[in-house]
């Protein structure tokens, strides 16, 4: 089985910030908007290098989304930055009408997604955002797994015309995808080859899936790990091809099982080749305060949970 090396823990939000810094140099139409979280979103370099293209909106997320939609008229490519909770649920109607329905080229960039925001607790954690965003017609939904991939995705979405939700996080996590890997929206990345179970993971759970695959290998279960960075449009072909081989699937995400990646995969399988599936996700609950590692363990979002789910799903074949 192919092994991956962690080149050093880094936060995915820094991948976004560094990607944005690069876009500042390479694409003069890129503008950045922030709702009083410049430091948290790592937008400081862009702000300092291009003050005329950086817009501090203040704590007014609804206004930020509307301004971003308006800025596209005249050719700008706005990147909005705030926490995932305030990027989605708080401004759902603004995104729905002014961005998605109006087909505006806005990039909604959301940090501190999921439960790994940690100590701030459930008011700031969001486990529903993938569902909210994927339900919007025309919205592309991306959840990246590490620093390198987040940086690559940030560059890629600037080249893509249409509304995008880019989801990333706060904690420093393994950085293991190739630094020069091109980001193709909607194209799954197969990380390991396997024959017994397909593990479809997104975001912070991708590294956990790789750890789980190693444990499973030692137990004689061959796992094929697929990194689904784009939840919508979903690379159905890649998932179906893998499940045709393995006959079962585990989905893994830092999100509620309702509305998440798992449901998208289940639909794909139901419409094509139904197969046993287990969901590694939160179980229709809010989060709470704690360290990221404690929370991942308590809410069953780590390698150990993926191993258990894999053992179970293989028996259901």
């Amino acid at each position: 089985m192919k092994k991956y090396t962690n080149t050093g823990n880094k936060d995915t939000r820094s991948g976004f910030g560094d990607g944005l810094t690069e876009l500042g140099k390479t694409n003069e139409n890129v503008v950045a908007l922030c709702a009083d979280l410049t430091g948290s979103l790592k937008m400081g370099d862009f702000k300092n290098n291009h003050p005329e293209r950086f817009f501090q909106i203040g704590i007014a997320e609804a206004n930020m989304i509307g301004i971003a939609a308006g800025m596209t008229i005249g050719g700008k490519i706005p990147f909005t930055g705030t926490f995932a909770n305030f990027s989605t649920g708080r401004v759902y109607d603004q995104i729905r009408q002014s961005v998605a329905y109006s087909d505006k080229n806005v990039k909604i960039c959301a940090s501190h997604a999921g439960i790994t925001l940690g100590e701030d607790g459930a008011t700031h954690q969001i486990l529903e955002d993938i569902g909210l965003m994927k339900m919007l017609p025309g919205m592309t939904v991306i959840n990246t797994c590490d620093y390198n991939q987040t940086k690559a995705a940030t560059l890629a979405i600037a080249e893509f015309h249409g509304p995008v939700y880019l989801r990333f996080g706060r904690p420093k996590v393994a950085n293991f995808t190739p630094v020069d890997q091109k980001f193709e929206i909607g194209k799954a990345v197969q990380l390991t080859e396997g024959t017994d179970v397909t593990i479809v993971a997104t975001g912070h759970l991708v590294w956990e899936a790789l750890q789980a695959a190693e444990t499973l290998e030692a137990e004689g279960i061959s796992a094929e790990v697929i990194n689904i960075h784009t939840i919508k449009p979903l690379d159905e072909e890649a998932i179906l091809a893998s499940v045709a081989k393995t006959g079962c699937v585990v989905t893994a995400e830092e999100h509620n099982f309702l509305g998440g990646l798992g449901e998208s995969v289940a639909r794909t399988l139901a419409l094509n080749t139904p197969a046993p599936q287990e969901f590694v996700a939160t179980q229709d609950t809010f989060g709470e305060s704690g360290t990221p590692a404690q929370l991942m363990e308590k809410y069953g979002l780590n390698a150990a949970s993926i191993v258990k789910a894999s053992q179970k799903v293989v028996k259901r074949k």
Partner: protein
Amino acid sequence: MSDNNSLENLVTQVRRDILRMVHKVNSGHPGGSLGCAEFLVTLYNDTMKLNDGFAMDGKEEDVFFLSNGHISPVIYSVLAHRGYFPVEELNTFRLLDSRLQGHPTTHEGLPGIRIASGSLGQGMSVAIGTALTKKLNGDNHLVYSLHGDGELQEGQIWEAAMYAAGNNVDNYIATVDYNKKQIDGATDDVLPLGSLRAKFEAFGWDVLDIKDGNNIQAIKDGLAEAKAKTGKGKPVCVLLHTEMGNGVDFMMNTHAWHGKAPSDEQLESALAQNPETLGDY
């Protein structure tokens, strides 16, 4: 510049269009549409600098956003008569497969519309965004928006108002359709707006009143004054005092026609008060 007589004739025809559109599908919002007919006719045919044809980007021309999207009949009629799409298409208002949706949208590709509106309170933010882009592009044209007075009850409006003044968005004129009525009744009864002038001034805007918002000369003068106030560091707010249902006697002085279509007899009476000027579609 257009002479007042030809603008008056256009207003009368727009009124007829509004009434006939709403009557045909027995739905839509005639009251606010009629109240803003003079304003939008003047804005599109006298005030704004517009390029030929329609480009979504709106570069090197003035740009208008309708934030209170429910008065779609009036904007559709004004856009059609301005040449954005065939006047006959007004006949498809609110019908299945029409580009003239109940509330305006870009989704069906209707020329003249740059943002969807209907869910209230969003258009000021959008207009500010376009005004900022015009500044970045070195484009000296202006951005206009229209809002219902009831719409100002939405919190996002005040987020936007604070931003525009705090960031010197002075290439922007926001107009409030100040008819003091909304669906459930008088704004004073539903949720009092207080002094809009004092509110916008406190937020840092330059505010002016158009006392007779259904008089073309008053609108011309007021918009000229508003334009003269742009470029001086402050966003400009026009309080346009209008009469909901203007031009149709039984639709005036009441909020009853906010979102109600006239019957056959009522239509006949309303059209008789507004004889055909440019020809019905």
